[in-house]
């Protein structure tokens, strides 16, 4: 499983079409940037369905930024 920054931005774009994902910094916390928990859940579902990235509840806090998801995905593929 390889996930790119672009994959994550596309998942956000798809889950929250009104959210300005293009200006979202890689290390910016999703919730601080204006996403809510429902959007976040759908972003992670899209990453699971499209890229096979499974994020159990105990790791969800780590996956609250683009960088966090990339780091988590990298660990899973080690």
């Amino acid at each position: 499983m390889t996930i790119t920054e672009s994959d994550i931005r596309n998942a956000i774009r798809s889950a929250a079409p009104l959210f300005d994902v293009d200006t979202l910094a890689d290390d910016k916390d999703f919730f601080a940037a204006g996403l809510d928990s429902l959007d976040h859940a759908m972003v992670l579902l899209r990453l699971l369905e499209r890229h096979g990235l499974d994020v159990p509840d105990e790791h969800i806090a780590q996956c609250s930024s683009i960088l966090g998801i990339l780091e988590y995905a990298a660990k899973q593929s080690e």
Partner: protein
Amino acid sequence: MIGIGAIAVEIPAGRISNLARADRYGASEAFIRDKLGFLEVARKPPEQETSDLCVAAARRLFDSGMAAPETTDCAVVVTQNPDGHGLPHTSAIVHRKLRLPARCLTFDISLGCSGYVAALAAVGGMMQAHGMRRGLLFTADPYSKILNESDRDTALLFGDAATVTELTDAPRWTFGAFDFGTRGDLCDAIRVGPDGKLAMNGRAVLTFAAVSATGSILRTLENNGLALDQVDRFVVHPGSKYMVDVIAERLQLPGGIPFYARHYGNTVSSSIPLMLGTDLAESDRIVLIAGFGVGLCWATTVLRRVT
């Protein structure tokens, strides 16, 4: 063939405004309006029991002349918040309060948001098999009994209500093929904890709805030989507005799915019959109903209007 004759509903008059208390939960007005969708939730008075809600709904049904207590062969209550401690079963208490006939079978069904659709199959099938002509199917699951009002994940969602559906051998609506399922591995996602209060893993429930409810709707259409555009109305359990919108998007329904529960909340197993009883149009001929939640279970079917 057994089907639906009439539906009556009871929504308590009491309301709690979610907009007025949004700040307390750290929620914005936009989140309440556009994501949760519930502007207010219905609350029964504390002293009003589950059976009282059922009886109030039944009185409306009987007053309409659509059904009569003396011809009732069975009375079934779908609830996980029964009267007292659950023994005797709430349907027996309803039987007493409504003075239903002695030769009337009563039992309760323990299911949540999928309960109404599953009970249509269970009770309808039982009536068909055993020659029963008229039955009363109640839904009443007042979550105010188990809500922790400081819990944002649940307090803003759930409302109290009850419904009664007359099941009859002279129906106005018949059922099609059903689709059922359970994700027992996720059963802890909606549960009552040791403190007696409701706890919910919102992410797990939303993901379950997006995947399993959508899949069930598509299978139900296929099993009934229908395409999406042949359904006049989708009556999908309103777990939240966002949940309904996600399902509509995944089904690629251009007009979306209407959200009717803004002024009373997620009423668990009552949500679908409540919408059927109040929001259908005369032009609706084929209606898909999909319930999903506690268990985590789903149940879906198609209703066809008898012409």
